[in-house]
């Protein structure tokens, strides 16, 4: 039972001052084992804050990040699942499932987490699952002003993942979940 927090596109301090208070009250240290962040934090203070939630922190570079040392993509294995991380501004058209699927095949991962669009989405295709946690602060994006703060918490348990989606709608936190299973254990894919 591994809890993985996925979030990104906070754009602090340029586009948003801080995470919503209701989110902050829920995110306490000691519960989460991994944090993956798609990028655009944008400053070191946010990095430090995420580090207090959990020491295992993975970040990829977004176009507004002030720390230039973050990698463009990252892959990690948690339990039976391989996760891939990328900010998403590199994949054009932004948010397009086919292009993201290409990236997923390239990285050879089961779950690909990208951001940039500031909209929560979760797609499934033959290669795996693509999740976009949205913007944790609800900051405006290149495309739209209208964004609800949202993030994603994944509960990885064996071959099964439960994705809890946390969204702040009209000042209230709404939680949904998505279930999916992997059919085979992590093995070398023949095709």
């Amino acid at each position, binding site marked *: *039972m591994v*809890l993985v927090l996925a979030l990104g596109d906070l754009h602090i301090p340029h586009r948003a001052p801080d995470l919503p208070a209701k989110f902050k*009250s*829920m*995110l*306490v240290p*000691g*519960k989460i084992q991994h944090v993956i962040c798609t990028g655009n934090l944008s400053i070191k203070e946010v990095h430090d804050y995420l580090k207090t939630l959990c020491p295992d922190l993975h970040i990829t570079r977004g176009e507004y990040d002030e720390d230039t040392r973050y990698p463009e993509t990252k892959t990690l294995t948690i339990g039976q699942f391989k996760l891939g991380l990328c900010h998403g501004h590199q994949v054009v058209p932004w948010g397009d*499932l086919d292009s993201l699927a290409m990236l997923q095949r390239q990285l050879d991962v089961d779950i690909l987490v990208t951001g940039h669009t500031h909209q929560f*989405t*979760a*797609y*499934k*295709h*033959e290669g795996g*699952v693509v999740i976009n946690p949205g913007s944790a602060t609800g900051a405006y994006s290149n495309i739209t002003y209208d964004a609800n703060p949202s993030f994603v*918490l994944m*509960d990885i*348990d064996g071959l*099964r993942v*439960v994705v*809890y*989606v*946390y969204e702040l709608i009209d000042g209230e936190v709404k*939680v*949904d*979940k*998505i*279930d*999916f*299973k992997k*059919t085979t254990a992590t093995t070398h894919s023949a095709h």
Partner: protein
Amino acid sequence: MVKKKVPDWLNSALWSSSSTTTTSFSYSDTNRFDHHSSTSASPPIDPPLPPAATRDEQQHTPRHHHNYHPRKPDIKEDKHSKSSIVNDNISNNNSNKSFSNNKIDNRKADNTESSAEDISNQALLLTELSRKVINMGELRRIASQGIPDGAGIRSTVWKLLLGYLPPDRSLWSSELAKKRSQYKRFKEELLMNPSEITRRLEKTMGFDNDDAKSESRCVLSRSKITHGEHPLSLGKSSIWNKFFQDSEIIEQIDRDVKRTHPDMHFFSGDSSFAKSNQEALRNILIVFAKLNPGIRYVQGMNEILAPLFYVFKNDPDEEMEACAEADTFFCFVELLSGFRDLFCQQLDNSVVGIRSTIARLSHLLKEHDEELWRHLEVTTKVNPQFYSFRWITLLLTQEFNFTDSIHIWDTLLSDPEGPQETLLRVCCAMLILVRRRLLAGDFTSILKLLQNYPPTNISHLLYVANKLRGQPSH
């Protein structure tokens, strides 16, 4: 050290356990014993024949002189002399037999007489145990004199004394099966993590999402969460929240289990045997903590659990040994039920709490040895809490070595009034046995002595404790 004036009769070697004069003492010299016995025979407060002496005349073999064997360098000489004096004066099978018990641990070589005694006690117990319906009063009586170490007798006797096994032998197998399956269910329910719990909840509500293979490419549908349960939930009744709160206790239990008896291979070390034992202790404590939200886990419970598990796991009977964990759990619950109020902080000042228990100990000491009581409470102002807290709450497991504390537990568990009464008497006896050093000491030395209680002859200690059962000795 300032020696206070102590009346001669109290100053007899009988009461003190400190090894003062030992040089000219020789075991083989029986004259010496006569000399000692004469000095102790003179005072009027010679320990009177206790009613216990009438117990079990079968043990009354006149073998006292056999105890003067030229051996046992590891037992303090004074205690040896005292026990033999006691045997001299009162033919008490108590010290005879438990004497032999202690010795079995140390020397196997020339134990012919004592093992014969031991065997006779063992035979007694075995006959009692082999009856169809066991007479509990009789069993308690025999057990209070100590239980022999071999043949798994102790394991069965403790289970009977703690009420885990019913006195009727024919009910044993059904009772055991029932309790063991109950424990298994507890473990399954309580040791499950929240992911599994939510999965089971969903199954019962029919939210089976196994049809995900239908479309190869689609937007994944979001579904409602059951009962508002999500991992970051801060709700009081949320299983996730409870899980994270429990994880603190589980961490504490883990730490304490790893620290239990680090000197014993049974409990600590890298062997898989030790690890599985630790795992069992851990499971028992976690299940107990979850089933008892009132007291949860308190540091020290692992120490009370350890001897129980050790005895049950070392049962030569394979079936008993395999189910030791389940058996230990129920016996632990039973044992703790008499003491649980001592662990509850809110009850500290109440009639059943730890403070009043300590006050009872103090009162008991005052009844039996007013001078010592006055010295401790009034003159040196040693608050009994400083030393007796650990004695009482941990049932003396920390004051003596492991084998000794198991022997004390034989007596504690066999008391029909419940272990607490006997416990207080044993604590009082512990104080009386070192009275000379206490009376001569000041606050620091007294505390030092009582917080590191010197090794004692357990049989003598239990004998003195038993004597306190009656009227005050002066």
